[in-house]
């Protein structure tokens, strides 16, 4: 059913198309989808069950494999969602009904009472501090601490507003008495509303498995057995122990920590046969971070297969072993018992040779699996979508973001266990699919902000207004605010100063605007919290009053003053005065900056006509933009030409023909077969490129606003195991072709191939060894797929798979289990002792007239389970050849000024949150060019790249930030130092004038050039030397 969705969708969109999309779930997936849609002309409603968006990622301390701080990388998206003019966040709510058809749905949303007005609440937290109830379970800290009845999950929450938990609240009324913002609403009630949207994106995420159901691990009984979610909170700086590694029983620092893998995953007894995809990596990350936080920690990870299949994952595990001393033991832990006196834990397991070993640990972490969210079943019923047998949304390999109901899309862990980048990719993909469906309604429901013209300030000296915030008692309780205001009045250029209870409140914004008019202010200084969260708000405020965004300065007298010097009010007041003086000194020098408009060319260049390129091309075209699709080969299809069926059994060639047919029928797509891109010039919105036939010929020149790199990858040509020497040694894709074309019939000894009944598959040929220290990700599933095919054709066939780790992640695991049940034998060989394929002397056989004598083939392997060598006579040896990056990547990378990773694949802008973007704006990435991946992952990534590209293409013009570097030609000596330090290739030397020239569209405003320039010729506008020195002088 899902297979045909795309076609259905094309036909089903009725006459009316609504330019709004409902996103259900406000985790990282939901946020990404919402931002992509809102930034390409659609109104978004984001329904979140919890009081704040942020989801599971907000709970994480760090993220693998970069060890990025989870909150830091996510909070810009949080803030953007919260502030976006066209995203309406509807927290505390759920979807209860759906009517209508794709393009025009009516959704019923029920909102629970919050009892706090989120528009008034400032998040100061006084209510929580005084709430008499404090014993409610703090779910955000996974129950490791308690919280009051009035609470907020985390300090950066969006909306930044408290919630009363009516379950535990006794209704004493203290919070209302203490709330200075007047935000408490005890008469709040649940409400229901109906939303009219064109499409729906489901991003409910997952729920961690509850190990209380497994008696053998003692979770819930032994205090020092914790889940990985709890341990993540223990590691987090915002967690219960502020990031100190302490064990729950007594607050001691654990020395020996055991991680137990596959708790609630790969386990038929708990109903979760699938692999949760992320646990091997997060356990390794937690072990590494624990070691960083407490160097004495000795972590041990008990695992079955190390599933570090993603980009950069294997090298992360290597580092965990070699640099951090993390111990990995391959076993299944049988039992955990407690030493009552110490609360230490005895872990018993079988070692590699089958002896039962017991070992004492101070703390045990259960790596719990991912389950579908409990609310998914109800939602699926309300929306009429199908779930699979485990409760994840059912999708097809070629339609990974489409549910069984047209117009309803899905992304993230709700579709199956997956990590953050896969989630973000699918989220962008789902957004792209929704945008394509609703392309005709783009821009119909969005609001655009309009501003009054900027005042002409020429000839007017600085007239500065200072607004000092009490922030309830957050600042005023420590700093003597009236004294600061008095002091501010004495500073040069200050013509007005006042204090506010909350400078950020809506009414104060109006007041600031009135004061700007009343006193003819030309610069505004706010002394309050941090510019990181509030600068845009105040900038917006003064812009609305006709002042340029950049005529604003902020003094951080809360986060960096009153909150951190609570016991020294006099010194804090002195510091606050200093900070205000510095901000005023800076403000006096500020100048209006321009946010340069850059017009956008509404077409895309897509390089590579394989699955990724074709999918992206169709998406971009369906969104209404022109596409130039360049394919090196004479025909479209790329890698897909050699794939015949999927693990789930779908017919790949049929899908391929369908794709090509649709490309041919799409007038907006121009295909350039047998061509390559020879030159790319320009920048986001304005590229100009040359396309030429391979081997030379007439070049075409095209103009385009974005580039999508979808150049694919190659297959490693094995250089061992007699490949190329013996015709009976082939690769998995060769086997697949033979199977699909009927050239091989297991059981019948075909003369051409010599096939009998015994197949030996060797994994990791060219992967995870030598310089290619990465995993090719798909080979295990391919082996399982082909083994199942062979078994289906001939149940008597003997199939051996020689592997290092079986990496059938996610629901692929189910097929691995099926293969085992079907009698496929899996033998693990040691990394340092690969199998040997050798001919055995025997009766010579005449081969198809070639007269080449061939004996029996034999594969010798050390079986790690038996501990001895095994010789398997083989009729056919099948090699899982690695996926290798194209040699041409380097050339293209240089052309586009984008980086490659150590292995030669393209390197995305951010491993976690920008998986299909490059750091260079306007250039996107999809498919095997990024890293090895499966068909569904490629399709999702192609949708995502297209969606991201369309956020640019749907703009008439791009406005860049005003903070840019500028060259004073008279001072520039043309030395070129700045050219070297600029990471964005924004500076070029003009050889005619012998001066540096800065391309404002490429400049990101880091200021490295200004700090490097030897003759003071470069100025970073907004952070000029004068402005910084003014601050220095004011200290």
């Amino acid at each position, binding site marked *: 059913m899902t297979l045909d969705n795309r076609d259905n969708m094309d036909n089903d969109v009725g006459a009316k198309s609504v330019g709004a999309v409902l996103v259900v779930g406000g985790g990282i997936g939901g946020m990404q989808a919402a931002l992509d849609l809102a930034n390409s002309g659609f109104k978004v409603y984001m329904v979140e069950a919890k009081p704040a968006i942020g989801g599971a990622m907000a709970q994480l*301390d*760090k993220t693998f494999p*970069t060890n*990025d*701080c989870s*909150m*830091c990388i996510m909070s810009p998206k949080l803030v953007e969602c919260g502030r976006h003019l066209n995203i309406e966040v509807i927290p505390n709510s759920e979807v209860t009904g759906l009517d209508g058809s794709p393009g025009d749905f009516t959704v019923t949303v029920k909102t629970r009472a919050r009892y706090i007005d989120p528009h008034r609440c400032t998040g100061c937290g006084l209510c929580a501090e005084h709430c008499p109830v404090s014993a409610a379970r703090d779910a955000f800290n996974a129950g490791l601490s308690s919280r009051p009845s009035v609470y907020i999950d985390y*300090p950066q929450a969006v909306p930044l507003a408290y919630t009363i938990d009516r379950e535990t609240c006794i209704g004493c009324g203290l919070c209302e008495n203490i709330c200075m913002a007047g935000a408490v609403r005890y008469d709040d009630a649940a409400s229901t509303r109906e939303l009219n949207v064109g499409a729906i994106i489901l991003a409910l995420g997952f729920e961690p498995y509850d190990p209380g159901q497994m008696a053998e691990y003692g979770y819930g009984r032994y205090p020092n057995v914790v889940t990985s979610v709890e341990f993540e909170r223990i590691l987090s*700086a*915002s967690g219960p122990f*502020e*990031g100190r590694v302490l064990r729950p029983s007594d607050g001691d620092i654990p020395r020996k920590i055991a991680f137990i893998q596959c708790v609630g995953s790969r386990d038929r007894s708990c109903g979760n046969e699938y692999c949760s995809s992320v646990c091997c990596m997060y356990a390794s990350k937690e072990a590494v971070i624990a070691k960083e936080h407490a160097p004495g920690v000795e972590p041990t990870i008990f695992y079955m297969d190390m599933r570090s299949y993603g980009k950069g994952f294997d090298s992360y595990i290597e580092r965990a072993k070699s640099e951090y001393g993390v111990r990995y033991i391959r076993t299944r832990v049988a039992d955990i018992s407690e030493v009552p006196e110490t609360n230490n834990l005895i872990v018993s397991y079988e070692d590699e040779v089958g002896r039962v070993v017991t070992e004492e640990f101070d703390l045990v972490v259960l790596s719990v699996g991912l389950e579908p969210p409990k609310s998914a079943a109800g939602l699926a019923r309300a929306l009429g979508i199908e779930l699979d047998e485990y409760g994840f949304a059912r999708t097809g390999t070629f339609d990974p973001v489409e549910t069984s109901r047209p117009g309803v899309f899905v992304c993230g862990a709700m579709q199956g266990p997956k990590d953050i980048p896969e989630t973000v990719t699918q989220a962008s993909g789902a957004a792209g699919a929704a945008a394509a469906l609703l392309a005709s309604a783009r821009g119909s429901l969005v609001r655009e902000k309009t501003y009054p013209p900027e005042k002409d300030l020429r000839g007017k000296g600085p007239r500065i207004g200072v607004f000092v915030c009490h922030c309830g008692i957050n600042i005023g309780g420590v700093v003597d605010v009236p004294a600061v205001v008095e002091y501010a009045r004495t500073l040069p250029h200050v013509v007005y100063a006042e204090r506010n209870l909350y400078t950020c409140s809506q009414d104060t914004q109006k007041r600031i605007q009135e004061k700007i008019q009343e006193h003819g202010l030309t610069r505004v200084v706010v002394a309050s919290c*941090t*510019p*990181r969260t509030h600068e845009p708000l105040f900038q917006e405020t003064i812009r609305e009053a006709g002042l340029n965004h950049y005529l604003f300065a902020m003094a*951080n007298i*809360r*986060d*960096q*003053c009153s*909150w*951190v*010097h*609570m*016991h*020294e009010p*006099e*010194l*804090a007041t*002195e*510091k606050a005065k*200093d*900070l205000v003086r*510095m901000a005023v000194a800076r403000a006096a020098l500020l100048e209006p900056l321009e946010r340069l408009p850059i017009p956008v060319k509404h077409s895309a260049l897509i390089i590579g006509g394989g699955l990724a390129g074709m999918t992206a091309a169709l998406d971009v075209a369906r969104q209404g933009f022109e596409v130039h699709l360049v394919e090196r080969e004479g025909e479209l299809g790329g890698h897909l030409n050699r794939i015949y069926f999927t693990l789930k059994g779908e017919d790949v060639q049929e899908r391929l023909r369908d794709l090509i047919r649709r490309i041919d029928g799409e007038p907006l797509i121009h295909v350039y077969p047998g061509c390559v891109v020879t030159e790319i010039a320009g920048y986001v919105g304005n590229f100009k490129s040359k396309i030429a036939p391979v081997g030379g010929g007439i070049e075409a020149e095209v103009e385009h606003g974005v580039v999508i790199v979808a150049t694919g990858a190659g297959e490693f040509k094995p250089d061992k195991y007699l490949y190329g020497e013996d015709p009976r040694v082939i690769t998995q894709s060769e086997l697949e072709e033979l199977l699909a074309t009927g050239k091989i019939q297991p059981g019948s000894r075909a003369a051409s191939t010599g096939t009998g009944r015994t197949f030996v598959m060797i994994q990791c040929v060219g992967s995870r060894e030598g310089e290619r220290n990465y995993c090719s990700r798909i080979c295990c599933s391919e082996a399982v797929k082909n083994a199942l095919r062979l078994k289906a054709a001939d149940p008597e066939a003997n199939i051996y798979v020689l592997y290092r780790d079986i990496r059938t992640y996610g629901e692929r695991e189910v097929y691995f289990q099926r293969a085992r049940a079907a009698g496929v034998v899996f033998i693990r060989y040691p990394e340092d002792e690969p199998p040997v394929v050798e001919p055995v002397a025997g009766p010579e056989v005449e081969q198809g007239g070639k007269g080449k004598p061939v004996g029996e083939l034999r594969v010798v392997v050390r079986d790690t389970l038996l501990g001895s060598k095994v010789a398997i006579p083989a009729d056919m040896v099948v090699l899982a050849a690695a996926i290798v990056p194209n040699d041409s990547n380097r050339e293209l990378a240089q052309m586009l000024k984008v980086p490659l990773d150590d292995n030669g694949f393209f390197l995305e802008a951010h491993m976690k949150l920008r998986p299909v973007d490059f*750091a260079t704006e306007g250039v996107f990435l999809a498919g095997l060019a990024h890293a090895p991946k499966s068909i569904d992952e490629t399709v999702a990534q192609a949708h995502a790249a297209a969606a991201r590209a369309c956020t640019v293409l749907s703009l008439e013009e791009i406005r860049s930030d005003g*903070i840019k570097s500028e060259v004073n030609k008279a001072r520039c000596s043309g030395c070129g130092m700045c050219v070297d*330090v600029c*990471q*964005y290739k924004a500076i070029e030397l003009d050889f005619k004038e012998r001066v540096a020239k800065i391309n404002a569209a490429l400049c*990101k*405003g*880091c*200021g*490295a050039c*200004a*700090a*490097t320039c030897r003759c*003071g010729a470069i100025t*970073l506008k907004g*952070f000029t*030397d004068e402005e*910084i*020195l003014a*601050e*220095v*002088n004011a*200290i």
Partner: protein
Amino acid sequence: MKMNQEGEWEPKIVAFLCNWCSYAGADLAGTSRIQYPPNVRVIRVPCSGRVDPLLILKCLQRGADGVLVSGCHPGDCHYIAGNYLARRKFAMLKRLIEYLGVEEGRVQFSWVSAAEGEKFADVIKTVTRRVRELGPARKLVKVREMQGGAGASL
């Protein structure tokens, strides 16, 4: 020179914090209410790579007793490699100020991520303690007195 209520000298320290990591870390110290000495005056810059060594010298000339430059951890730089540039500049500057006779420890460099509120507070505590031990900065003030308006080239 800054004196506290008891008439004792209080060091004044300028901290250049990059907007994306260290400044955010300083904010986190605030939201976590981690207390540290009030001797530091923060100047926010887009990237630690923006901090020209001259700015640091200028701080010492203008009466700062210590200067801290703090950026993202290696690999975390919002601008790809600005923190490496900062580190290189800093290594060079350290040698220069050593040559000038400014005590080691007056000018310090650290990595503080947006998640390290506690580390930020620790860095401030350490820097303040070190500078307090060193006493008021005098070296570069003399230079300024001798040369009149040195640094006017900035």
